[in-house]
Each structure stands twice: as structure tokens, then as C-alpha cells.
């Protein structure tokens, strides 16, 4: 059939690639080609992240890798909460600050080593954050966004004004990781574990209930379950990821201060998710891999980098771009062609 270019009856059609269809379920084990098709993206991500410290030139950039992973933890948390459970958190800095200060206190006041402070700060911090966010969970999403926006701004001012917890100087003298490689691989390892854990979680039964909070909260209520309780669970998970990244942060910098409540930690994860592709969980990681080095390069320009993230964010939201990962997944799994209508 000859396609007449002038006919207005053509349209673009997207069809799954042959290899994707052949790979459903157990048939993915059919041959090496199918198995590669399925595992290649994941293997690339894991191998890529693990190999990063080895290829980075110099300590400065190796530190950047650690920071990328910290932001990535926040961004994955944001993506999970926003695109799977429907709650938009505008204050990732809240979790980072709480987790960071907790780890700092545990380390300086009780001399616990990082391997103890990080899990402790994660759990305690997550509980604290969830409790503080509890009042706005039964209400509409706007309130959650407002309250998460406010908390980091407030806490920063309160600490500054009351001059507690080190005031503007912060808490100093915190233990580090004792070795660059430990530091980097600890963070990268946690990121990978968390990423794949959340990925598994959303496909389990309870993951389905959590996704139901966004997609179908009527069904949850009509089935006799309290939606607020599941929202709290989702917030706890995200808060845990945020607090953990905060705890890692203070051990890397060996210092804890109000800058942990800074806007960077709130805005960059959102921008990374939007650029990298929301709803994919790996997209935010890619977004961070792009944005954090760029922001380091822009460090000389001062707060211009925030302007930069903010404008990119606005552009992406307003033009409703799908994000890198979503685009990539689409290209990987489907192809397009013109057909007659």
C-alpha cells in the first residue's frame, strides 16, 4: 500500500516492539536476546552507579557523587510520594534537616558511630516527621503541600532565633566515614537498595493499596480502610528516606547546620523528578545525575543556581514534558509509525 503523503487521514501510531511482546512473563527466559532486553537497563543503572566513583577525577568530584546520591534518595522519595500516593511534598529539606540534626546529636552527645546513628536517625526522624505532618493528612493535598513547605522555613528560623542546637554555627565535630571509598559506596549502595526496594514495594499488595490513595481512594474507604493511616505509612517511608539522606549528609560534611533546611533540598529533588521523569523511580536518579553536577558548576554564580532550577521546573511543568526516563522507556518499548486511518 502506498502511503499518500497528502492524505489528511494519516495518524501516528505507537506499538509495542516485537521483542517486548515476546518477553512477557516467563517467556523472557527464552533466549539471551530477550533476557538482555529486560535486564540491560537495570544492569546499566547499577553498573553505572557503582562504577562512577572509579572514573571520577579527583576528590572533589567524588564528593559530588555522594551528594548526587543524597539528592537522589530525596528525589526517589518525592517521586514515590507524589506520583504513586498523590501527596506532593514541597519540603524535602524538612526531612534532611531533622535526620541530619538527629544524627549529629546522637553522634556528639552519645558518641554513637555512623553505622548506628544513621539507622537511628532514620527511624526516629521518620517517626517525628510523620507525627508533625499528621494533622494535614486527612485533608486535601493543598494543605500537605503548604505545611511541608513551611516546616523547613520555620525550623530554620526557630533554630536561628532560639540559638539552640548550635544556632547559626551548627554542630561541629561529627565523625566522618573514615575513607572516601567507604563513604561513596555506602551512599551508592543505600541508594540502589532503596531504589529497588521501593520498586518492589509499589508492585506488592500493600503497594497497590498505597497507590490506591492516589488512584482510587473511594475504593479504600468503601472497603473499610482508613485512608489517613495509609497516607501516614507512605509519608513515613518517604520521611525515612529523607532522614537517612540527611544523616548521611552530616557524616559526609562532618557538620550540621541550618543550611540543611535550605531550599536546595526542597527544590532540587522536585526539579530532578520532573526532568528525569515522574512515576518511574529511576527517572529522579537520572535527574539528579544531571542537575547536581550542573549546580556544582554553577556554584560560582551563587543563588543563581536556584533561579536556574526554578525556571527549569516551571518550564517543564508548564509544558508538561514527560521527562527523560518516560521518554526513554517509551522509545525502548515502543516504536512509532504512520498508518492510514
Amino acid at each position: 500500500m502506498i502511503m499518500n503523503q497528502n492524505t489528511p487521514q494519516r495518524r501516528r501510531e505507537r506499538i509495542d516492539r516485537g521483542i517486548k511482546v515476546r518477553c512477557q512473563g516467563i517467556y523472557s527466559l527464552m533466549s539471551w536476546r530477550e533476557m538482555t532486553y529486560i535486564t540491560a537497563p537495570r544492569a546499566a543503572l547499577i553498573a553505572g552507579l557503582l562504577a562512577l566513583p572509579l572514573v571520577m577525577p579527583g576528590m572533589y568530584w567524588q564528593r559530588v557523587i555522594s551528594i548526587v546520591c543524597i539528592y537522589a534518595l530525596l528525589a526517589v522519595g518525592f517521586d514515590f510520594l507524589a506520583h504513586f500516593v498523590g501527596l506532593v511534598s514541597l519540603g524535602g529539606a524538612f526531612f534532611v534537616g531533622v535526620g541530619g540534626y538527629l544524627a549529629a546529636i546522637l553522634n556528639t552527645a552519645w558518641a554513637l558511630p555512623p553505622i548506628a546513628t544513621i539507622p537511628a536517625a532514620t527511624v526516629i526522624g521518620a517517626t517525628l516527621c510523620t507525627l508533625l505532618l499528621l494533622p494535614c493528612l486527612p485533608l486535601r493535598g493543598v494543605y500537605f503541600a503548604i505545611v511541608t513547605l513551611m516546616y523547613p522555613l520555620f525550623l530554620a528560623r526557630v533554630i536561628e532565633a532560639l540559638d539552640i542546637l548550635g544556632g547559626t554555627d551548627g554542630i561541629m565535630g561529627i565523625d566522618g566515614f573514615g575513607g572516601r571509598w567507604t563513604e561513596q559506596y555506602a551512599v551508592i549502595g543505600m541508594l540502589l537498595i532503596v531504589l529497588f526496594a521501593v520498586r518492589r514495594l509499589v508492585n506488592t499488595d500493600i503497594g497497590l493499596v498505597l497507590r490506591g490513595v492516589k488512584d482510587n481512594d473511594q475504593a479504600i474507604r468503601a472497603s473499610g480502610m482508613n485512608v489517613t493511616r495509609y497516607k501516614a505509612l507512605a509519608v513515613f517511608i518517604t520521611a525515612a528516606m529523607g532522614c537517612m539522606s540527611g544523616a548521611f549528609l552530616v557524616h559526609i560534611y562532618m557538620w550540621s547546620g541550618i543550611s540543611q533546611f535550605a531550599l536546595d533540598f526542597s527544590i532540587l529533588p522536585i526539579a530532578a523528578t520532573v526532568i528525569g521523569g515522574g512515576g518511574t523511580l529511576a527517572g529522579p536518579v537520572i535527574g539528579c545525575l544531571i542537575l547536581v553536577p550542573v549546580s556544582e558548576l554553577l556554584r560560582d554564580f551563587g543563588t543563581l543556581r536556584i533561579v536556574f532550577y526554578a525556571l527549569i521546573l516551571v518550564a517543564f511543568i508548564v509544558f508538561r514534558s514527560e521527562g527523560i526516563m518516560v521518554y526513554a522507556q517509551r522509545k525502548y518499548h515502543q516504536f512509532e509509525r504512520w498508518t492510514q486511518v
Partner: protein
Amino acid sequence: MDILVYGTINSVSLALYALGFALVYGTSRLPNFAHGALFVLAGFITWFFLNSLGLPYPVAIVLAMLVTAVIGALIYQFILVRVRGMEISEIIASYALGLAILEGLRWGGFKGMSYTLPVFIEGSFAVAGISVDYQRLLVVLIGAAVVGMLWLFTHFTRIGLALRGMAQDERAAMMLGIDSDRMAVVAMGFGSGLAALAAVLLLPLGNIVVESGYNILILAIAVCIVGGLGSWMGAVLAAFLIGFAQILTVVYLGSHYQMVVALLAIILTLILKPSGLFGRQKELEERV
């Protein structure tokens, strides 16, 4: 007695901060998180007109208000209208814009304590033994006038009634021929203008600092939540509640706790009566 005086001044200031936000949210359900940024921007624009262009003060003020209103309307017309209806995107987009404006101002060199606006009238007078400067008196008077004019405007003029109609029920307003998108632009313009008005009235009492952009946003939102998102009169009432609460805290506890009061007010409202003083219950539940 001084609590009464300072309380009133503080409350009217809060009301001025909050009215712009309340107007925009009430009309088009847009949470304008760039509100604080517009406030600070208006201050800097006034300073610029006054100092760099050398315009006379009254001209600078009026011009700055107009420019800010236009900027607000343009922001809405070209950016925010595309995310209309998707609440979360509206919040993120307006917040990001506000952030861009504020941090852009900071990067542009508007740092430090040296930027001020002169007061309108120098000097002070005594009210029941307390010295109050004329600027603050003006704030209270003009603030009260603004609230009154807003009431008149929304009850007796065509555009005002259209805005009120949209606030009550958007679909019904559309059926009556009110163009909701255009009205939303108008509302945003008015809201930005009100932010600018608050700025020119209140900034002479201190310095123009970028940080205050965030504080103003927090205070405006706190007032609107306590008053009920979407209710203009509720915002005024809530401003008085929070205003007096803040002054009482300053007198009895110490001045650092002012912001804490605002946060506590939000949390208490959300726990006890989430729809605020005058908010409508249906604001809260997810749609069935």
C-alpha cells in the same frame, strides 16, 4: 493598652499581607505561592523608581503598584493559566516562580540592609501615652480603607461582582457569561497590586530584605488558612486573631516566638477546624 495599639497595627499589617493571596485563591482557586516574591519585588521596584530614576515618591509608588499588578497578571496569563485546575502543579509552578524572582533579586545584588524606603510622614504622636509614628497610623487607616473599599468593590461594581460570583461558584458564573480565565487574570492582577500596596505601606517601617519574601508568604498563608481558604472576610478576622496572639507572645514570651505563633495557628486550625473560620466545608473532602 499598648497591647491594643500594637496588636491593631500588627493585625492590620497581617491583613494587608494576606488579602492579595486571599483574593486570588478565593476567585480562581490558585494558591499563589509567588505572593511573597511579588511583595519584595514591588518594594525593590519602588526603590528603583525612587532612587535610580529619581521619580517623585507618590509617582514611584503608584507606578510600582501598577507595574507589579501587570507583572502578576502576565505571570498568570502566560504561565499559570496553563496549569489551571491541577492544584499541585499550580503550587509548584507558582512557588518556583516566586523562588526564581526572590533568588534572582538576591543574586542581582539586592542583598544586605541598605535598601529602604522613606516613610510618608515623619514624626510620631501619642495615643494614650504610647508613641506611635505616623507611618503606622497611616498603615492602619489605609488598611481599614482597603478592606472597606474591597467590600464595596466586590459588592457594587461589575468586575467586583464577577470576581465574587466566580469565588462562589465558577460554573454558575461561566453560565452567566463571565469569562473565568479573564477574571482569573484580573484577580491575579489585583492580588499582585494588593501585595504591592502592602509593600509600599509596610516596607518603610523596616528594610527591604529578600528573606522577608518567605516570611510574608508564610504569614499570608497562615492568615488565610485560619480564616478559611477562599474567604476574604475570614482572612481579615484571622489577621486580627493571629496579630493579637503574636503581640501577646512578644510581650509575655519574647520576640523570637512570633513565627512560631503563626505555625501553631496553622497546625491548631488543621486539627480543630480544618476549614478555618469561614471556609466552606466542601473545601476539604476529596470529591466523592
